[in-house]
C-alpha cells in the first residue's frame, strides 16, 4: 500500500510532503505525482519543494495540495510569501525554516535543504515571514533532524515566543515524550515527525493517546 494511503488509514491529522532535492536539482514541483497522492489523501496535505513562483503555488493547490510550504524561494524572493498569501490566503502558506547554530552559537537560517547559509537570524526571519503573511511556520533543527534524539526545544520556544501564528515543530522526534515537550515546553501548535513512524513501532494513534493522557487537546481517534 502506498505510504500516503497507510497514513490516511492510520488517521494521521495531516501530511507534509517535501521534495527535498527539488531545489538543489533545480526541478519544479512534480504536479502529476502530487495529483496522484492527493487523490488518496482525505486529510490535509501540505506540499513543498521546488516552488519558485506564484504559478507553482496555484498549480500545487490545483493538484490537490491544501497548503504549500516555501523555504528557499522565500529568501530569494520574500514577496512570494506576500503574493501567495494575498491571492490564496495566509491559511495555506507555510514558511519552512531550517536552522542550525553558527560558530558564535546563535541560530542561523539555511536554504537549499539545510545546505546553504543565508546568514539570517531565525527570530528576525520568522517575524518577517509572519509580517509578509505566512499562516504557519515550520521550524526544523538541521542537526536534530533524523536523529530521533528529540527536538531542539529552546529553538522552538524561541520562535513561538516571537510570532503569533501557529508554529510546527520539526526535526528530532524519537518518542511520544518528545512530542509532548515540544507542545508543553516549546509551545508549538503542532508537531511533525517522520522517522519515529518510519523506523520504530510507534504510531500516530498511540502518540495522540499519549498526548491526550498528558492533557494535550488532540483529535480523538474514533473508530469508524
Amino acid at each position, binding site marked *: 500500500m502506498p505510504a500516503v494511503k497507510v497514513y490516511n488509514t492510520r488517521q494521521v491529522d495531516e501530511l507534509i510532503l517535501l521534495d527535498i532535492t527539488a531545489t538543489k536539482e533545480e526541478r519544479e514541483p512534480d504536479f502529476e505525482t502530487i495529483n496522484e497522492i*492527493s487523490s488518496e489523501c*482525505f486529510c490535509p496535505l501540505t506540499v513543498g519543494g521546488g516552488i519558485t513562483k506564484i504559478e507553482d503555488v496555484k498549480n500545487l493547490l*490545483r*493538484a490537490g495540495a491544501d497548503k504549500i510550504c516555501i523555504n528557499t524561494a522565500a529568501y530569494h524572493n520574500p514577496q512570494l510569501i506576500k503574493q501567495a498569501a494575498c491571492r*490564496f*490566503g*495566509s491559511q495555506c502558506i507555510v514558511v519552512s525554516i531550517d536552522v542550525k547554530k553558527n560558530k558564535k552559537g546563535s541560530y542561523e537560517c539555511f536554504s537549499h535543504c539545510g545546505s546553504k547559509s543565508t546568514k539570517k537570524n531565525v527570530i528576525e526571519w520568522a517575524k518577517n515571514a509572519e509580517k509578509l503573511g505566512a499562516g504557519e511556520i515550520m521550524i526544523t533543527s538541521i542537526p536534530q533532524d533524523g536523529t530521533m534524539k528529540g527536538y531542539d526545544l529552546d529553538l522552538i520556544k524561541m520562535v513561538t515566543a516571537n510570532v503569533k501564528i501557529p508554529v510546527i515543530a520539526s526535526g528530532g522526534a524519537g518518542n511520544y515524550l518528545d512530542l509532548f515537550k515540544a507542545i508543553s515546553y516549546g509551545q508549538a501548535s503542532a508537531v511533525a515527525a517522520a522517522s519515529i513512524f518510519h523506523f520504530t513501532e510507534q504510531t500516530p494513534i498511540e502518540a495522540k493517546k499519549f498526548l491526550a493522557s498528558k492533557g494535550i487537546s488532540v*483529535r480523538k481517534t*474514533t473508530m469508524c
Partner: protein
Amino acid sequence: MNVVVIDYGMSNLGSIRRALEESGITVSISDDPEKLDSATHIILPGVGAFKDGIKNLRRRKFHSKLRKIVLQDKIPLLGICLGMQLLADLGYEGGKTKGLGLISGTVNLLKPSVLRERIPHIGWNNVKINRPNPLFEKIPDDTDFYFVHSYHFAPKDNKNIIGVTEYCGSFVSSVMKDNIIGVQFHPEKSQYWGLKILRNFLEFGIKNRC
C-alpha cells in the same frame, strides 16, 4: 443526482471532487452559472479572502443566479469554509464587503481568548451539535473536523446555528437554514466523518425533494 461544485477560482476543487467520488458520486465542477439550472445539489467551496470571493462570484455571474436557485427553487446548497462565510450579509476580510445574504449575519475575525490560541485556527477541533439535524445524522457529538481559517460566521438568528466549536471563546462552525447549509471546517479533509457529512448533505437533498 447532479452535484455541481462552483468553480470561482478560489478552491481546492480537486479535493472536494475526490471526496465525493470516494462516496460513489460524480460531480461536475463548473464555472458556468447556467449549469446550476440542472443541479440537484450545489457545493460552494472556497479558500481565500471574503472580498475576493464575492468579487469572483460576481465576475463569473454566479451571484444572482445562485440566490435565485437557492431561494426560489430551494436547491440544497452546502458552503464550505469561505463558502459558508459568503452566505452571510457582510464580511470584513479584505475590507467591508456585502455577502450573498442567504443566512443573515456577519463574518468577523477570530479573537484569541487565551495566550495559547493562535490565528489562523488550524487543525482538528470538535463540533458540538446544537440540535438534531440532517447534516450531522449518525455523527457522534463532539466529533473532530479539520479547520483552517481566521474569520468566522456570526449568524444573527441563533436558530440557524447547528454546530459550535470552542476556540477563541466559541464560534459557530455549522449553520443551516432550510435548504442552505454551511460548515466552517473542511469535510473533504476530515477523513471518515468528513465524508459522512458530504453523504448526509447529498441524502438530505434527496429526502428534501421527495
